[in-house]
């Protein structure tokens, strides 16, 4: 299929439709408005449902309702709205419902800034809601990757009966790039029919209940199963790009838009003879721990965490794996100010000079 020039938000929305998503509910917030706007036109064309909810809270609960029916459903928002959706995301996890939640993130905390930022790493990876559940967090760095991950997200969500989170930033949401769109899948409840509440007109089956409340003994069992699931993700579902790390003395760690800028600097520095590489987590959760254990710490002089947020949020996860074997530096921009090529190059160079 030919590549088309598409805007980030619209590419993600189209990829979701092609993955069989037939339900969207959301609430306006910059910089993700192009997702609901696009789907308000697109979903009716394919027999899907679009609802502009009265709030983010209501919208995520509409998605919850649709998911009980075995319909591939999604919602999207940005930081302030994701905070409101936290309740519903926890209920989705509790009720073991698949759904896709997209965060096109902006500057925070609070209303923060409508400009791009990677300010929601901790929220996405540690606690998207109360109760100690986790979700897979995908962090694409190009629109093609955003399209591909969106397309796969529903399969993961249904396989695990757990919501999946796509973390972009305002920059990837607004940028236009060439993407190759995947083929259109027919919607199907094949993966969910064992438990969903859909019923064909003349179908008879025992009654089913999907609830977010459990007797103590069952809740503990469910939580143990969740723990096992998260461990399985770490073993089997980590996605990461390891770029020139074999002989690296300097290892940059970055994800999403920050990784684009960082990679450009890494390439330039390699051309100039520096032994530098990059670890790019594509799944922020499960975090690519093994990539850090592969490094030859006899050689590694510095780990440089580059994020579009201040203070760095991924640093703690990196530190847990590096275990003091190399010093960790951080560089970022915040408040809606963007990283740029030269500034990032200079920041890495400063570290190189400092550690020698």
């Amino acid at each position, binding site marked *: 299929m030919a590549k088309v020039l598409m805007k980030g938000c619209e590419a993600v929305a189209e990829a979701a439709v092609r993955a069989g998503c037939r339900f969207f509910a959301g609430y306006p917030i910059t910089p993700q408005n192009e997702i609901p706007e696009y789907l308000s036109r697109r979903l009716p064309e394919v027999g899907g449902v679009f609802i502009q909810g009265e709030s983010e809270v209501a919208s995520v609960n509409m998605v*919850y309702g649709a998911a009980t029916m075995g319909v591939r459903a999604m919602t999207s928002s940005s930081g302030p709205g994701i905070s409101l959706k936290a309740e519903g995301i926890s209920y989705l996890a509790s*009720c073991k419902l698949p759904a896709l939640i997209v965060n096109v993130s902006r500057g925070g905390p609070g209303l923060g800034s409508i400009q791009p930022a990677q300010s929601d790493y901790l929220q996405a990876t540690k606690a998207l809601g109360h109760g100690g559940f986790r979700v897979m967090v995908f962090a694409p760095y190009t629109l093609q990757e955003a399209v591909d991950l969106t397309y796969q997200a529903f399969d993961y969500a249904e396989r695990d009966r757990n919501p999946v989170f796509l973390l972009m930033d305002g920059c990837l949401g607004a940028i236009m790039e060439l993407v190759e769109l995947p083929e259109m899948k027919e919607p199907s409840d094949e993966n969910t029919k064992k438990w969903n*509440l*859909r019923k064909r007109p003349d179908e008879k089956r025992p009654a089913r209940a999907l*609830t977010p*409340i459990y007797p103590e003994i069952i809740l503990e069992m469910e939580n143990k199963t969740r723990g096992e699931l998260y461990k399985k993700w770490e073993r089997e579902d980590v996605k990461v790009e390891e770029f020139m790390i074999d002989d690296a003395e300097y290892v940059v760690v970055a994800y999403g838009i920050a990784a684009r800028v960082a990679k450009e600097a890494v390439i330039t520095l390699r051309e100039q003879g520096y032994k530098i590489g990059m670890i790019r987590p594509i799944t922020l959760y499960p975090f690519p721990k093994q990539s850090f254990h592969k490094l030859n710490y006899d050689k590694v002089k510095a780990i440089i965490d580059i994020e579009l947020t201040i203070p760095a949020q991924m640093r703690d996860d990196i530190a847990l794996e590096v275990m003091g074997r190399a010093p960790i530096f951080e560089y970022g921009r915040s408040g809606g100010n963007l990283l740029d090529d030269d500034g990032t190059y200079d920041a890495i160079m400063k570290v190189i000079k400092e550690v020698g």
Partner: protein
Amino acid sequence: MAKEYKKIYSRPYAIMPVMSGYCPGCLHSLATKIIAEAVEELGQQENAMHILPVGCSALGLLYWRGDMVGAAHGRAPAVATGIKRCCPDRLVFAYQGDGDLAAIGLAEIISAANRGENFTVIFANNSTYGMTGGQMAPTTLIGQKSTTTSEGRRVEDAGYPIKMAEIIAQLEAPAYVARFALNTPKGVNEARKGIKKAFRMQLEGKGFTFIELLTNCPTNWGMSPLKSLQYMTENTMKYFVPGVYKDVEVGA
């Protein structure tokens, strides 16, 4: 002799043959029963989809036989919206208490009603937060005591009890809005008919239907069951007046 007996009453199919865990004298179980009867009279046992709320009425999970979805506090109308839009043929109803519907879930109920979502909301108004231990509800009467208004609800700081049926009836979209009191056999019969009518209208695609049921909470009101029924006649029903507030089938 035995074959001359005629069966005139049985437990509705949609109610599980188990003991109710509701407090003695609580009208929740009666409300559950008349909903089940309405479902059965319309032949919708297989088709009904029950959205469970938070609070005492969430116990319906243990007594209801049929498909059920548990919703977060106040969000039942949003969950029902997602369900009904995906499966328009199902008979979808949410059962919500007063804190759930008239406080934390005001945005959801007003918006679902205003969109004219084609499902039914049954609102159990007992003037208290039952399961959490009897705190003031948005529907607690002026002067009525609760664990957070030990001297009785005061207008000065807590405002007035909120009249949901009247508010919903003001909207353009709803098709049927009515309030019934479950403290007398007459009220129960009217309520059963009202619920059945709301369900029928939903099945006919007429839009949003809303039934407010005045109920009691002997435990948290600190009254005997009988006294609580009297209290309803003397106080609750004077403020929350039973009646049909909107019906598109009348005078249309």
